[in-house]
């Protein structure tokens, strides 16, 4: 699949070139190369422990990389420090466990980035936060604390909180894995709407039907390497690599 090389580079938002990451002796990423293009949804799939979260965490500098490089809009990311802070503002991150701030209302959670990082006036930050809560369908929950929201509602607030920084790209790390089955759909719908608006998204997920329907490009991880990547039709219907088929059938995916 050479689709990655036949469009101009200006469309590449994130590029990974031979990225390595170790924890002590353990190799978590063993030379990962891939790209995320503007407005694309890229889904990372693969068994647990294969390095998917590590790749996201290296992308926004929560972990530093040990080799290779990651570029954002063609610029090599700094490995750490102050420069990384500016980069993080351009990427939104959504965590498996939501990580909402429990001492703040939903509105204050969403406004916290604009207030603290962008130093917007309170009125402006809260107006932006209200609009985003409305967008994820939670206008009526602005004054609620996270402990009074369902998992699905909390994750939608977390998405709004990340969007409040007006990021160029959104990173999702298994956003529905901690949810009760009945609230998974509402979160996936918000993500799907975001994708349709043209948001660039890198999504780690075990929701294969979401990946099948929404992804432009699917990347299969195993033991810190990419074993296969391509459009969803290839990965789900006609995988080139037997291990991809094994992984999918292990999940009960019938194609």
């Amino acid at each position, binding site marked *: 699949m050479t689709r990655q090389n036949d469009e101009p580079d200006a469309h590449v938002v994130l590029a990974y070139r031979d990225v390595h990451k170790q924890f002590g002796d353990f190799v978590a990423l063993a030379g990962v190369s891939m790209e995320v293009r503007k407005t694309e949804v890229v889904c990372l799939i693969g068994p647990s422990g294969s390095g998917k979260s590590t790749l996201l965490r290296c992308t926004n500098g929560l972990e530093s990389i040990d080799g290779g490089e990651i570029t954002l809009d063609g610029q090599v990311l700094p490995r750490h420090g102050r420069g990384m*802070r500016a980069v993080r503002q351009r990427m939104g991150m959504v965590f498996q466990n939501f990580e909402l701030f429990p001492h703040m209302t939903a509105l204050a959670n969403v406004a916290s980035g604009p207030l603290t990082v962008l130093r917007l006036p309170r009125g402006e930050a809260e107006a932006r936060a209200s609009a985003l809560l409305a967008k994820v369908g939670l206008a009526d929950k602005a004054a609620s604390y996270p*402990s009074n929201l369902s998992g699905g509602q909390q994750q939608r607030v977390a998405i709004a909180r990340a969007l409040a920084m007006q990021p160029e790209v959104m990173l999702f790390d298994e956003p529905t894995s901690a949810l009760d089955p009945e609230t998974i759909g509402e979160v996936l719908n918000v993500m799907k709407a975001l994708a349709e608006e043209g948001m660039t998204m890198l999504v780690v997920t075990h929701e294969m039907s979401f990946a099948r329907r929404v992804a432009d490009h699917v990347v299969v991880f195993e033991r810190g390497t990419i074993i296969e990547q391509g459009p969803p039709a290839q990965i789900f219907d006609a995988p080139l690599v037997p291990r991809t088929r094994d992984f999918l059938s292990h999940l009960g995916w019938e194609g």
Partner: protein
Amino acid sequence: MNLHWSVVWDNAGALARGTELTVLLTVLTMAFAVPGGILLALMRLSRSRLLSGASASFTELFRNLPLLLVIYAAYYVLPLALGVAFSPFATALIALGCNVSAYNGETFRAGIASIRKGQSEAALALGMSPWQAMRVVVLPQAARRVLPVLASTWVSLFKDTSLVSVISVGELAYTAMLIRSRTFRVLEMLTAMAVIYWSLGYPQAKLVDWLNRRFGVSE
């Protein structure tokens, strides 16, 4: 045995002023030791070996010396070491402040450590600096979590202020003992002291119990 309770009423004014000073000492010590404790905790958790070592030394020194010794030492050593004479009240404040700061430092350190890493990571991911993540996200949660412990430190402190009577700070214990030595009314003055300490301390202890129920095991 003859008890002459009139000695208490006759000296009510002095006892009231002593009580006032006890409350004032408690409040001022805490006002000093809460920021002091946060500072010690942040130093202890910082990456700088020097800061964290200084904080650990301070904490271990003051947590492991008897408060009475610290009070005497502050009284006799501070003027010699610094060449400045402090009033007994200021000396008491310094001694109590160091002691309680050391305890509060450990309390805040545990409180900060109890906030899971994902919280500060979420703050960093928004683009906050490590200090902003600490101030906006971690410390407010840690403060809530340590509130019950701080409150029980407060109750101990309220009683421990009586120790500074040894350097003639005119708080409640000193005042009561002074009246005793003038009038030889030992039992009356001890009873008066007990009633005053208890009736002020008991509601505080109840408040601590309530705080423990309210904030103790919350997430």
